[in-house]
């Protein structure tokens, strides 16, 4: 079992490095169309052109917890969106429910701002921690969303069912909402309440759809290859079990 896990990790590393080397000369990859990303891109353009702000909610998955993967994906998305809207009339707002994520998001905004040719002023209020327990975090984020300046709300990372409250607040403020999470319960709540949902692994590739580069493309392709590999293994396993050989 340990060897299977380690082999999967090594396989993923090799595939990403290999595909990254192959993708380096390519400028744009043709990914499958995910309607939520098209809607998000349109909402982003509309929001930035209108001088409105973007609120990015990064969840509560601590960097020390098994949910760190979803937090990393959310932070990547923050960097991709910040590149587009840091110089907008209304600066973006990153909210989180954990101290380490708040620091991480502030650092990401700083790095993104410094990397921009035009330069951008970052202040600590752009990366806020709005609560430390699931519902206080949701309540704090709802309060920040009600500001009226934010016409686009993006919620990615680790949440519980309280995510439904964020969707409702965004709808009430007439803001476009898109979200994705690693939690099954939150995902079902999100599916019931939002029109733009990123299901399963889709949200891990979100930043790759907004800001393409070779490493992102390679990791999305690796994800697809590994998924096909796992599907084949599961089917073979099911057939062998049905035949009584397993």
């Amino acid at each position, binding site marked *: 079992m340990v060897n299977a896990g380690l082999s*999967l*990790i090594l396989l*993923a590393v090799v595939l*990403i490095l290999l595909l*990254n080397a192959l993708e380096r000369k390519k400028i744009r990859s043709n990914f499958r169309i995910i309607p939520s990303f098209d809607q998000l891109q349109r909402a982003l353009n509309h929001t930035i052109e209108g001088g409105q702000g973007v609120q990015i909610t990064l969840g509560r998955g601590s*960097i*020390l917890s098994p949910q*760190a*993967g*979803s937090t*990393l*994906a959310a932070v*990547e998305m923050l960097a991709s969106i910040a590149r587009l809207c840091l110089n907008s009339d209304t600066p973006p707002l990153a909210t*989180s429910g*954990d*101290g*380490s994520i*708040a*620091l991480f998001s502030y650092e990401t905004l700083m790095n*993104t701002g*410094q*990397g921009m*040719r*035009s330069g951008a002023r970052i202040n600590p*209020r752009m990366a*806020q*921690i*709005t*609560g*430390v*327990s699931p*519902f*206080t975090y949701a309540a*704090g984020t709802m*309060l920040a969303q*009600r500001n009226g300046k934010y016409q686009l709300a993006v919620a990615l990372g680790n949440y519980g*069912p*309280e995510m*439904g*409250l964020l*969707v*409702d607040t965004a709808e009430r403020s007439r803001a476009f909402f898109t979200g994705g999470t*690693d939690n*099954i319960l939150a995902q079902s709540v999100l599916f*019931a*309440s939002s029109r733009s949902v990123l*299901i*399963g*692994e*889709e*949200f*891990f590739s979100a930043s790759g759809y907004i800001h393409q580069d070779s*490493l*992102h493309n390679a*990791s*999305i392709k690796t*994800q697809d290859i*590994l*998924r096909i590999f*796992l599907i084949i293994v599961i089917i073979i396993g099911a057939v062998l079990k049905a035949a009584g050989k397993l």
Partner: protein
Amino acid sequence: MRWIVWRILILTTALILLAGVFFNGPILREINQILLSWIITIAGVAALLGIFNLLKVHSGRVRQERTDWVNSVVLLFSFTGIFITGILLKPNHPVYVSLVNAIITPVETSLLALLAITLIVALIRAIRPGINGTTVIFITSAVLFLWAATGFVPFQEARQSQLVLSFFNTLPIGGARGILLGVGLGSLTTGIRALLRPGQKADS
């Protein structure tokens, strides 16, 4: 140059922690313990900084008299009260525990109740002209499973009914496992991506 040193440091730490998951040796365990205790200390300091950030943001809202600034005043007062009580009584004191529970539990229960209503409204709102196939399947399955959960299923003891019910029971389990596999793969590739590109400056 400094960038390469950081990169090597991050990769080495990650590899040591990963090796600790798969291999079990006394030296590796010791190094992992030290690294983890450092990380936990840093996370603790980060949580403290997060609380300072929360207070700074809300005191700013009160100073500038922004929308809903009264909520921020309530937050600042309750935080100060709970903090001072915690320092004086210690966090395990029964009075302190009941004080915190008396605030947190009703607030969270109210929000949960609000969520239930929000979900019902969302489900009703989803039934609209131009509804897509996936939403139809979702609403149908939600209604079917709510019905099954009540226990009032006719002929549920019959063998055929049992077969149909067990088939329908496997559908959400299969779906959930599929989504979890996707999430696992996504976490894996995101983690590797972050390790291969630690702290890279953004290109505008």
